[in-house]
């Protein structure tokens, strides 16, 4: 367990070893995050570098009132999204009418799914669903924040999340059929 406050204090004084400690501690956690949002290992590396450049540049702004982990993750998400925007990535509007209610999912369907499996399932979602789902479910941001991040309306974020969930269950059903499982979804 490292003393984050002490490391931050030393980083602010320009101590290189502390900076390296900070990178070594948070880098492994942030790299998968960057990969999830950029969906590209090279772009993820760029986003991760940009994240730490911004972390050291704005470390003085971190007042300690919040959780450092949340602060740094937020920077990583922003950098990942900005990295995407620098490319040719555009969110495609998906038209999908209909009602949707949260289904019941049997634990046996997903309990055996590891990180790679879950990521594969999520990546089958349309990009906008994928982003909204990740930001809402994994990162825990609200729809207002997501709307601001992705430059979409708050209601759009909400409806996209609903569709993402519906689509996710459909993918799970499909997976179940592929696996020949008799698991109920």
């Amino acid at each position, binding site marked *: 367990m490292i003393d984050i406050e002490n490391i931050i204090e030393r980083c602010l004084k320009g101590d290189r070893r502390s900076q390296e400690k900070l*990178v070594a501690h948070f880098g492994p956690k942030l790299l998968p995050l960057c990969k999830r949002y950029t969906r590209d290992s090279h772009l993820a590396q760029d986003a*991760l570098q940009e994240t730490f450049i911004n972390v050291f*540049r704005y470390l003085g702004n971190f007042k300690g009132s919040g959780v450092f982990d949340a602060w740094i993750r937020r920077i990583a998400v922003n950098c990942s999204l900005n990295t995407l925007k620098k490319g040719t990535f555009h969110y495609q509007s998906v038209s999908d009418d209909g*009602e949707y209610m949260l289904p019941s999912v049997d634990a046996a369907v997903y309990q055996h799914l590891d990180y790679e499996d879950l990521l594969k399932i999520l990546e089958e979602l349309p990009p906008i669903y994928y982003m909204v789902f990740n930001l809402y479910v994994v990162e825990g941001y609200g729809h207002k924040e997501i709307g601001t991040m992705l430059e979409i309306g708050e209601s*759009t974020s909400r409806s996209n999340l609903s569709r993402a969930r519906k689509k996710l269950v459909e993918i799970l059903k499909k997976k179940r059929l592929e696996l020949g499982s008799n698991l109920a979804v």
Partner: protein
Amino acid sequence: MDYNKFEDHIKKTLHNREEAVDVSKIMGAVDASQKSGRKGLVILLATILLFSSFTVGYLVYDTDSEGLAAASESDVEQASHNILNSKDSRSEEERLQDRSMILQARDSEIHDQLNPATKQELSSSSSLQPSTSKVVDVASISTKVKYSSVTARKSQVTKSDNKFLRNDSFTETSARNSFESFNNVTFAKQEEAKSFNYKNESLEKIAIEKLVNTGEILFTGTPQNVECPSFNQNPWIFEIGTIMGVSDPVKRFSINPTEINPALTSRAENEKSLEGLDLEFNLSAKRMRWPVFIKSGVSYSRWTERMSLEREYTEIDTVQGIISATVSQTGDTVTYIYGDIFIETDYDIKKKVHYYINRVNIPLSLVYEREFGDNAFQAELGASFNIRTFSAGSVYESENTFTPVNIGNFFSSLTGVSYFTKAHYRRYISDHMFVGVLAHFHYLPAEFSNRSSFSQKYLNYGLGIYGGYRF
């Protein structure tokens, strides 16, 4: 099983994932970023250092030159002393002959300079001896600066040859005094007209003789009436000037990474700085022989920012309503199914909106000047103290909203101290008037943004023209 548990599983699995990273590669990128940030500061410091070295070097060199100049002046004085001594060692008759020859040599030239009335008066004066007339003419010219009436002097000097001869009884001291007075008169004339070159050695000899002779004639008995010329060879010079110019403000816009606002991202990408306008009134105070002087005044600058907004987006609203109605075959049962109804609206927005940043400053600078005849080059280094920054126009704030700057309180009303360097070329078009062109660079470390969500800083460089008056 509850669907929420499925999402919790996803969150837990994805959130806790860790992968190895290359720390040295990331630190390399961080170092490179920090170095590039310092580059601007290093350039500025190097410029200041170079300028300081140059100025100090020049001042040291100039001090040596002044020493040499002082030595030269003492040599000249010694030489004139020797000339005067040698004159005293000659017989009175020889000195008279020499003087007569000198005066004859100048006679025709001086005679041409007299006005027709004087010439006529001189020619009509039959009682004068030729040699005496020459002395009269020299006296007229040598005291030209002091008196305007040649005829008045004529009557004063045509008393008799005895008066003239009494000049030869001058002591060495009085002769040297006259020589010094002449030098000062010479300086005064050079400053005033710059039209007569006294540096020719033969002319200097003539002038010495001239003053020795005519000074006695004109000033004997009334030294208290002589107006002593200024001995200050390094007077203060003041200049007032007006500069007008254009500049190219280079904006450095960055978003606080903790802020998530697409409008800021859009501003960073699409907001462009247009040309700036500069106006300055300044006053300089300098010593004539010093190459470095101070300058201050009041300056005004106006920068324009243009936001080009081009947005195409679809907004989806969700409302609850009847999405299906089923009527039974008998017609007595109607089933309504309620659900989300999605309404998609396409927007295509194209706007160009400006805002302006106006600054009023008090610049204070040191100027190094090097003159080349009527031309001069100046290098200027100084600080500018902002006394007021005010903005106008509207700033892009959120998705489709431009907020007036006075409402949004986007920018600071004071932007602190900025630092600048200028390079001038100027030409003196008369003794008092000058015009010039300049190039300038401003480094503004101050934060213009009044908000924590974004940072807005500037560099500025530009060109200007100016004119002024010196006195």
